[in-house]
């Protein structure tokens, strides 16, 4: 195409892969993330204990220490195996993060594409909407929304689907801005002009011709947002407004940890370490992807 300007992202597979491999920590992050995903996917065949079963033979009303009675990482305050809950919690965290980010990318891409491609009043409307959502602090808004939805709907409707929709529906703003910025410059390019002259419809131009050229920043932003959503979901669950017990999530496993911290610090430590390791891996991966896909942004 043309030589690179700030808003252009040329993807050449070879150089991208070469640059990515050079970023050792990003490579390590990808490996760690793949491992965690593998463990989460394989959870049912790992011969773990039942994550929701109380060890009634050994549990005396307080958390069992790591190593006691066949619990490698101990139990929580209800006598449930911590290792099993951590593994099943990983499933929840990863599923919520994946689908919430998928949703935010879809919404953000469509809104950003419409704003950037059509400009004018559509652009103005989308950008004001973006401003509005960026100005309301996300966590309080999420708390209010989950509180309202869970109080008005039946208990059965709760679960991770609700969290996915609420988080995904409220975090598309960054993607929308990125796509809009790319489209503003892409729509003026010769190939867009050519596509238009050939009689292609707007939809085809947007999705077949322009979007593939705007994909690099979306990938980077989506990867980093996976980390953000994992943290957000765990915070909501910790505060009691996310994934509801007995379903294990890394966040709600920490909800009662504070009151037992003096006698059972491991209950507070392990779930947090899982969050930290996963989020670190995703963040390093995202960092590496940014350096690889977009040399202009390297080091930011």
């Amino acid at each position, binding site marked *: 195409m043309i030589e690179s300007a700030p808003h252009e992202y040329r993807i050449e597979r070879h150089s991208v892969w070469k640059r990515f491999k050079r970023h050792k920590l990003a490579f390590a992050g990808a490996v760690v993330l793949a491992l965690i995903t593998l463990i989460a996917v394989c959870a049912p065949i790992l011969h773990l204990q039942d994550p929701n079963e109380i060890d009634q033979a050994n549990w005396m009303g307080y958390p069992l220490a790591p190593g006691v009675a066949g619990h490698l990482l101990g139990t929580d305050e209800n006598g449930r195996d911590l290792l099993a809950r951590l593994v099943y919690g990983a499933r929840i965290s990863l599923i919520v993060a994946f689908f919430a980010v998928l949703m935010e990318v879809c919404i953000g891409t469509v809104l950003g594409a419409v704003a950037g491609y059509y400009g004018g009043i559509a652009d103005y409307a989308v950008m004001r909407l973006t401003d509005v959502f960026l100005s309301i602090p996300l966590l309080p808004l999420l708390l209010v929304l989950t509180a309202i939805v869970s*109080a008005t709907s039946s208990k059965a409707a709760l679960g991770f689907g609700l969290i996915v929709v609420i988080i995904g529906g409220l975090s598309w703003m960054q993607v929308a801005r990125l796509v809009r910025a790319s489209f503003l410059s892409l729509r003026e390019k010769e190939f867009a002009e050519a596509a238009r002259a050939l009689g292609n419809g707007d939809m085809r131009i947007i999705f077949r011709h322009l979007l593939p050229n705007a994909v690099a920043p979306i990938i980077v932003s989506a990867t980093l947002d996976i980390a953000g959503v994992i943290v957000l979901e765990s915070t909501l669950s910790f505060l009691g407004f996310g994934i509801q017990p007995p379903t294990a999530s890394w966040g709600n496993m920490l909800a009662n940890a504070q009151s037992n911290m003096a006698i059972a610090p491991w209950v507070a430590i392990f779930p947090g370490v899982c969050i930290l390791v996963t989020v670190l891996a995703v963040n390093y991966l995202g960092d590496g992807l940014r350096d690889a896909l977009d040399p202009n942004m390297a080091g930011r």
Partner: protein
Amino acid sequence: MFVYVVRRSLQAIPLLLLISVLLFVVLSKAPGGPLGPYLANPHITPADIARLKHNFGLDQPLYVQYLRWLGRVCAGDLGYSTTNSMSVVDAIMDRLPATLLLMGSSLLLSLLAGLSFGIYAALRPYSLGDYLITTIAFFGQSMPVFWFALMVQLLFAVQGVNAFGYHIALPSAGMCATDECPISERLEHLILPALVLSFLNIATWSRFMRSSMLEVVKADYMRTAAAKGLTATYVVMRHGLKNAMIPVVTIIGLSMPGMVAGAVVTETIFAWPGMGRLFFTALGNFDFALLMGYLMLVSCLVVFFNLLADVAYAWLDPRVKYD
């Protein structure tokens, strides 16, 4: 410059109006609306509810309710908080000093630590100190605030740390707000929450400060300043810092939503009697007026900080034309 500030401030008004419409519509979907807290009370009959609804104008269309709310807010009345049995303005005023103390000291700490770590790392790139700061910053950005709070409590409050021959154990909850409380004890109560709330900022800001300063130290005007015979400190602090701050002020302005969220979590975990905890307790009771007031207030704070960042940007960067 004055015209620019006025114009940017005026632009904030329609934005805040849109935010208030959105929040009003969302909150009115709460079960029972503003009368939700009364629904569970067996002493209040459906007839009472109907009467209250009529008296408060809740049987009117939503836009009429909104316009009435807006009118009252413009007159300085945010409504009546059912959880606290006082007006929302009083309830917020009660908690505002604690939040301002916590947020103010965290902001100060974040600025001091975040910026100086960033500058230090940029001046000695790829040294041990740089790697240490960059790695800790990366960890800081990847750690949920609530878990960091738990770990800090575990380490410094539950177990205590032995250092320099002293056993350091800090209080894990409360603010020590009575009149008899000595200033030293107040500080002890402030240290952990302020540290927790500023950690994410320190991590983010030091990374941006480092990359920005790394660009600036390579600039020609820095060499010129050094060639004039100015001391290294003066060159970095006067010529370097002002230019390196240009991208950083935007990041600082954008951290406000994160700080508000962090304050909710931090105040809940450390039992800090601030606005975040006020909001969190009101949440379970669907205290309409208080939730609306709190969300509007924090949104105003975010909009104000964005404005401040834009103005600071224009002031720092003479290339920006603000007319």
